[in-house]
């Protein structure tokens, strides 16, 4: 009986987990590290978090449908390379171009998942190979630096307005747009409906294929913008930048309290998850912890967060 009581309280906490964890992380680190909440450190964290905010925000939509996009990191790498190489030719017009590229990538994923009825993790795992192929063949020597005389085009992104980096402001605007999409459009609503119960959604007249495709398209577009931001931030084309990001983005979404089984969650929760994860990584960095620990810590956070969010009530549901 006591056991049962404990379980209920854990699932109650999971609703507020994102808030508890962010307070905990920033509280602990600001005690341990004196200038953790200093202007310089916060600005760095904002620049660090900006691309991840977009990426995880887009990825959330795929996770709302109960699917997953394991290719998000590779899409970031691919668009980072494309931006780094072609920004000299197109100037800042490259951002809308990349957005279009990303939407197309997402469309391919979405069509494969819905029209061929394949599991999303298989499709995205397979298409990952294609994006990283593009990234690696365009950048055979590891990474390409944006030429010095073209740097003025990309410098604005890391400039600050009232102490806040422009990149972070744009990312916040992106999250706001995603929030509007999620709350106030038919597509957003139908994405949640698909995640909660596909058959029921179909019976209720929701175009389930369209909802799934739009989720992947949003994810693709956001990943592409994140890739462009990485190129602006690093001032070079790095074909491996996204490799570790898929894990970080999924962990952020999970930490926010979005259910991996689909049907519930919010972009705002993801935003808090991203800030928390960025806080953890920067904090560990400032404490001088070996960066090799980063993947381990994020992996453990992911498992822990997913465990807390998982739906243990629907016992008859088969989980594979």
């Amino acid at each position: 009986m006591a056991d049962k009581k404990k379980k209920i309280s854990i699932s109650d906490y999971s609703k507020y987990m994102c808030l508890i964890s962010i307070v905990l992380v920033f509280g602990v680190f600001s005690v341990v590290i004196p200038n953790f909440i200093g202007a310089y450190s916060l600005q760095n964290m904002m620049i660090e978090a900006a691309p991840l905010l977009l990426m995880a925000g887009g990825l959330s939509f795929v996770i709302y449908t109960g699917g997953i996009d394991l290719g998000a990191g590779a899409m970031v790498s691919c668009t980072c390379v494309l931006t780094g190489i072609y920004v000299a030719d197109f100037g800042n017009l490259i951002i809308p171009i990349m957005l279009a590229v990303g939407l197309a990538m997402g469309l391919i994923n979405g069509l494969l998942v819905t029209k061929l009825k394949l599991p999303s993790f298989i499709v995205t795992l397979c298409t990952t190979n294609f994006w990283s192929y593009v990234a690696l063949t365009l950048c055979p020597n590891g990474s390409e630096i944006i030429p010095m005389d073209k740097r003025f085009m990309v410098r604005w992104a890391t400039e600050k307005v009232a102490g806040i980096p422009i990149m972070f402001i744009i990312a916040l605007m992106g999250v706001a747009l995603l929030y509007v999409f999620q709350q106030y459009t038919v597509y957003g609503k139908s994405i949640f409906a698909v995640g909660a119960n596909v058959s029921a959604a179909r019976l209720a007249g929701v175009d389930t294929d369209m909802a799934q495709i739009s989720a992947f398209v949003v994810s693709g577009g956001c990943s592409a913008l994140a890739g462009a931001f990485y190129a602006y931030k690093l001032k070079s084309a790095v074909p491996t930048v996204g490799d570790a990001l898929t894990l970080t983005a999924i962990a952020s979404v999970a930490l926010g309290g979005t259910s991996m089984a689909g049907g519930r969650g919010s972009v705002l929760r993801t935003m808090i998850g991203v800030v928390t994860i960025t806080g953890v990584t920067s904090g560990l960095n400032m404490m001088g912890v070996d960066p090799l620990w980063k993947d381990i810590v994020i992996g453990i956070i992911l498992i822990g967060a997913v465990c807390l969010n998982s739906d243990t009530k629907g016992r008859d549901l088969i989980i594979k």
Partner: protein
Amino acid sequence: MKNKWEESLATLSVGQQFAQKVKDDARKDKIRRYAPLILLIIMTMIGAVSQKDFFTWGNVVNIMYQMSIPLVISVGLTYVLLLGSIDLSIEGVMGFAGSFVAFLVVNNSNSNDFGLLGIIAVVLISTLIGAVTGFIHVKARIATFIVTYAVGSIMTGVAVLVYQGTPIQVKDELFIVLSQGKLLGIPYITIIAFLIFIAGALILNYTAFGRAVYAIGDNETAAASTGINIGLTKIKVFALCGCTAGMAGILQCIRLKLGQSSIGLNQMFPVVTAIVIGGGSLAGGKGGALSAFVGVLIYTELANWLTLMGVDPYVKKVIQGVIIIVAVALTINRTRKTISK
């Protein structure tokens, strides 16, 4: 096709319709079972025609050597795919096992000398990791791709931590003997791999546990109602997969005499491709040890062929991806109300 079906609906009684349907399913199943074998024969014939010394003993041994590590991985992965789950942690566990075993035996960075004991310890730890993965999946009810993805990243991180950035070189006598020794012209690594594979095949086909895996993959609800302990079977399957991934990592370390996290890199994906080519289904319940063997053989011949034609390794990965998508799309059962997420 549809016309024929409608016609049969009109003319046949319910019983006959059912018999017809069973017959159709059996025929489809037969095609699915024999298509990989036919593909293998065609590939071998193409190989024999395009390469003069394809059927020499030396080349056969060479192909067997190339397929040995994928074969070991395929043992555990076959079980996991039969359940309809996936194990994305194989690469991480392999990297960890390879790095840690190099750390435990005679090497150039510390004075450890555990020899065979070290190998056994690493296999046990890998099995334990697999069991923990399975336990989290079963008890916390999380989809396997997410648990195994996280565990894989954690293990890759641990692998790099073990050797602190500089890969460890193995100096152990046992490893050198195993990597260079041959029995009747067949390398020891190949022999070990085939023994592991045979053991896995026997467990799958002749034990209650193996049959339970099939039953769960085919219909979990039905399996549960016959009294199979679903949770325990699943945990055992993941433990087994961790075990074979660990062994594969150790074999890779023996082969390279170097312990680093990247020995697991790009090892899982080809084996998934191979099992799917061999007739396995990602939805579970279909496939088996023999079809995994055929799949790995087809894949090795294909990879061999692509390398000989000078295809870029990245293009090779793209081709793998296309093969998986096509193979899964062809074999997926759309007659049921499929929900793809």
